[in-house]
Every structure is written in structure tokens, then in C-alpha cells.
């Protein structure tokens, strides 16, 4: 804490609470209220109901949850493996090449995700690369969008890792593969878990590219929410959003615990 005086601290907390409340909590609260609203014409809803939840649960909600979870898990796992591999490989390249490739990795996240989706749609529309209309293209889209973050996270972890650990391991007779498995990766675990959690969260919320490429029968949560609200079914969309928030939150908290256990041991 840089500010020590009591009024100063109170002021800082007040500003923080205001910003947090307005920017984060207010939109969420509105969504939560809508998901429970019977009618909403005035300042507040005129009645509360759980009808929207039972509607979405009876509707396509579970299929959407499953599509999102499977997509998020597979794309994140793939991104974790390849991002880690890329970060490890780039570490032993010379610095300029590593920097150029590092920047290339981040390009997809600078392009609007709709364009990424469009690009994939065009690129994979001809044999032998015919992926249009398959689940695989959804995975690919998510992978392209999130791999930069796994790569960035793991690279940051590697940069903070003292070379002493690996060098001592080598001098004790550990060959590169043994060293990677028993020293480098365990020491990177907190970063790997964080990378996986971030990718998963990004994937769970991804809409732009998915909307462009998703096949019938593989409708993710954000796509369902989008089509519900597009149809004017705002309350059901809000209920489904709350489902998405809950699922993501549970997942992230679970990962947090895993990471916490890892860093403690």
C-alpha cells in the first residue's frame, strides 16, 4: 500500500468500489435481473420468475453447455501443448527469430474474431482441407484465437525461471527429456494452469469466429445466447448467460485450487 493515511485509504477503496461496481457488477446485475424478470418495462422488473431457467434447461441449454465445454477443453488442451512447445522451442532459438515468431503468434488476437472465422471458412472450404460444416473447424477457430495467450503465459513463466535449476539438473546427469519432465514442466505448472484457465475462459466466451463457422448441432453457449437475443428472447438469453457465467466460474475456481495445491507443494 502506497497510501498510509486513513482517509486516503478510504478514498482509494471508495474509488475502487465505484469503478468495480459500475464496470463489472452493474452489467452482471442487469443480466441476472433480466434472467429472473417476468416483465421489465419500468426502472425495475415488475415480477420475478424462474420460468426462463426452466425454459432454457428444457431447451437446448445442456447441448450448448456440452458443446462449449468440449470445445473449450479440447481447444485449450491443444493450445496448451502447442503453446508450451512453441515457448520451449523458441527459447533456444536466437533472440530475433524468437521475437518475430512471438509477434506472429499474437496476430490472430489483434484481428477481429469474425475475420478469423471468415478466413478459416474460406481457407478450409476446398479438399483436401475441407473442414467446413465439421466440429473440427470450431476447434481450429478457438485454437487460433487462444493459442497466443497460452504461448504468452508459458513464455512469461519460462523467462522468470532461473536457468540455475535446469543447469544443475543437467550437471547432475539429467538428459534433456528427463530434465524437461522432472524439472522444467513441474516448475512451470502454475503458469501452465493459468494459461489453461485463461484459454478456457476465452473459449467459453468466444462468439465472433464461432458464429461464422459453427455447424448445425454444435451450437456453443455464446452462439445460443446470441440467437436467443437476436430473436428478441432477451430474458431467456439472460438466463443462458447466467448458466455460462456459472459454468465458467466453477471451472476457474476448480483450476485455481489445482494451481494453489501445485504451488504449495
Amino acid at each position, binding site marked *: 500500500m502506497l497510501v498510509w493515511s486513513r482517509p486516503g485509504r478510504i478514498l482509494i477503496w471508495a474509488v475502487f468500489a465505484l469503478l468495480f461496481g459500475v464496470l463489472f457488477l452493474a452489467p452482471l446485475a442487469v443480466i441476472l435481473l433480466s434472467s429472473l424478470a417476468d416483465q421489465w418495462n419500468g426502472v425495475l422488473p415488475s415480477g420475478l420468475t424462474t420460468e426462463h431457467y426452466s425454459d432454457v434447461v428444457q431447451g437446448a441449454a445442456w447441448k450448448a453447455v456440452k458443446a462449449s465445454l468440449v470445445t473449450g477443453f479440447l481447444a485449450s488442451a491443444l493450445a496448451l501443448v502447442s503453446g508450451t512447445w512453441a515457448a520451449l522451442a523458441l527459447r533456444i532459438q536466437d533472440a530475433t527469430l524468437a521475437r518475430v515468431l512471438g509477434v506472429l503468434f499474437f496476430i490472430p488476437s489483434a484481428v477481429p474474431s469474425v475475420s478469423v472465422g471468415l478466413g478459416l471458412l474460406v481457407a478450409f472450404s476446398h479438399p483436401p482441407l475441407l473442414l467446413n460444416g465439421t466440429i473440427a473447424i470450431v476447434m481450429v477457430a478457438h485454437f487460433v484465437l487462444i493459442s497466443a495467450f497460452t504461448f504468452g503465459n508459458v513464455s512469461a513463466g519460462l523467462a522468470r525461471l532461473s536457468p540455475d*535449476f535446469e*543447469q544443475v*539438473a*543437467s*550437471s*547432475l*546427469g*539429467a538428459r534433456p527429456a528427463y530434465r524437461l519432465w*522432472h524439472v522444467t514442466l513441474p*516448475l512451470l505448472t502454475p503458469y501452465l494452469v493459468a494459461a489453461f484457465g485463461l484459454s478456457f475462459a476465452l473459449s467459453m466466451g468466444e462468439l465472433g469466429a464461432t458464429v461464422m463457422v459453427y455447424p448445425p448441432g454444435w451450437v456453443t453457449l455464446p452462439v445460443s445466447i446470441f440467437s436467443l437475443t437476436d430473436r428478441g428472447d432477451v430474458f431467456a438469453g439472460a438466463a443462458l448467460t447466467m448458466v455460462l457465467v456459472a459454468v465458467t466460474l466453477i471451472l476457474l475456481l476448480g483450476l485455481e485450487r489445482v494451481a494453489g495445491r501445485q504451488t504449495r507443494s
Partner: protein
Amino acid sequence: MSVPAFTGSNVMDVDAAKIRGAGSNVHFDKVSVAYGAHVVLHPLTLDIAPGEILAMIGPSGSGKTTALRAVAGFVRPASGRIRIGATDVTDLPPYERGLGMVVQNYALFPHMRVEDNVAFGLRAQGADKALIGERVKDSLATVGMSGFAKRYPRELSGGQQQRVAIARALAVRPRVLLLDEPLSALDAQIRRNMVEEIAKLHRDLPGLTILYVTHDQTEALTLADKIAIMRDGRVSSHGPTAELYRRPPNRFTAEFLGRANLLPVTVAEGAAGPKGLAKARLGDAVLAGAARGEKPGDKTLLCIRPQHLSLTGDEEHTNRIVGTLKEVHWQGELTHLVLDVDGTPVRVSATRLPVSLPERGSAMPLFFAPGDTSLVPEDVRG
């Protein structure tokens, strides 16, 4: 700190014999290292005998760590060869060199218990379980850490972590042990104890060759059989510890090892007599000191250690110089005086002071024995 001392040789008798056989010499043959165009090690030729402790000391950036890492295999020499025993290891990867290494911050693997840290090398080499168990026990016993096998590194003090790091290196029965400033993260008190314990460890494992990098001259003087003093990527001097201290071959060595006083003198008479003493002139005073082949008329330096200067003369302390008293610092067991002798500051460490010390600014005689004095050439390079 309640850490037991390294245990005596009883535990290690069998293993000491094994290591004794394994001890190897290290040979640097014109080894140079450069980072791009920046040469950090100029062709270095140096031998460490089997079972010897060589301390490599020198100021920060002088290339000590670089030389050690070249032996370990983490720095590729631009030219020259490195041999360990009969093996040319220059092109071998680190994991095939059979060394033990201890670094400044210990680098214990934080996710492994003490016993797994110590077992790491043997497991990596695929040793069998029974052997690993036995070696882990022995190595931990050697460093007095048997009771800590189940702890994690973060549950140990700095000194304890350092012991585990040494045990981990010893467990693989290295031919050579490389220590890079192993004590510099510890505080002064523990550091003194650890120096003594490493000395004891080497008495228990006399065959173990040790390259000990430090910038602390006390550690080097206490532990080393030989010292190599590094300066700007070159060996400034190399020799048996006592000899290097008593007869420093150049100004840098004299100043770096024990902060000697160096008075500019002119040689009056070359070496004479059974002790080979030369006579040199400093202003009006004629002083005797061990010669190094100087001829009359040569300008050179007279080296005298602060603790060899006495405030009173007798039949042994026959050299006499006069200086102006500048500063007096009392430090308990020692009192440090600084005098100005013909424009050169001269430090004196006195254990006993005369009843009354002259006023600051007044003249004061200093006495020293010719046998404690030697002539030292000025460094060729600035």
C-alpha cells in the same frame, strides 16, 4: 541455528575411498570465451590437481563464473580444450561430464523433498533403487542433514539449503565439485561456520577435486590449496595459497589478497645474504625486504601487510618508516590506523596500542621485520 556439524569420517569411510579413486584433475588448455565480440576469458591455461581445492577469486566481472561454467559445459569455449582426468570434455554435453555443481542460490528443486533433491542425479542416471537409498542416506549424513530428508526446501534455512545442495552434488560421486559463490547468500556468522565445515568435508573426502569460485578472500585463504586470482578475464596470478599471500607476484595480487600496503621504493642493493634480502630506499629510509631479482636503481614496490607493522621497534623489527597519523578506528580486538607515508596511505592493524597515542596530524614511526616484507613489481597493465 541448530544445524549439526558435518559428521566425521566414520559415516563416509567407504564412500571416501570410492571418491578418492574418482578424483580427477582439471586442465584448462588455452581456453577462451567470448560473447559476440566481447572477450570475457582470454586464453586461460590452468591445472587443478586431483584432490586439490583451487579457489578462483577476483573482482566482479573478472570471468570466474565464466571459467567455472566452461568446465560444467554451459559456456562454449571459443578456442582451447578442457580436460577432466584423461577425458577431453570440451565437446561433451553437461550431463555427460560427471561433475557436481553448487550455485549461489542453491537452486534446490522446490517441488521435491530434500531426499528427492539428493536422489535426483542418480535417478536421472537410472541407478537402481537400493543404491539410491544408500547414497541419499550417506550424502545427507555427510552434511549433517539426515533429520531433514522429508522436508521441502522452503522449510529449511539458507545454511541448511546449502548443505542439501552440497549433498545433492556429492550423491552422484562427481569427479570434480564446482562451487560458485556457495556461501555468498549466507550471513557472516553462518558463512564462517560453513567455511570450516567445507574444509572438514574435504578432509573426509580428500580425493575430491574442488573448483571454488568466490570473491571473498577469507574463504579462499581458509580453504584453498591453491589460488588463482582473476582480473579482466585473465589469471593475474596463480600459486599455493600461503606463497601467494607471503610473496605476491604483482601489485594486484598484493592488494586483492589481504589489502597489503605498497610503498614505491628505489632499489639500493640487490639480493644479498642467506635470506636473499635486498635494500631499497624510501625517502631517507633504507629498508630491507625479500627480493625478486631486482637490480640497484630499479623502481619497485615494497609490500607490507597491515598486521606486520608495529608501533614499537626491537631487534626483529628493524625497518623503520615515519608517517603522519591520519585516522584511528577502534574495532574491539583490533585498532586500525591510517598514516600518510610520503604521500602513500599506509594501513596498520594493531592488537596493542601504546599507552598514549600521538595526536592526529603528528609524526609517528612504524617498524617492521625484513622477513615480513617483499618487493613486488608494479603491474604492467594499468
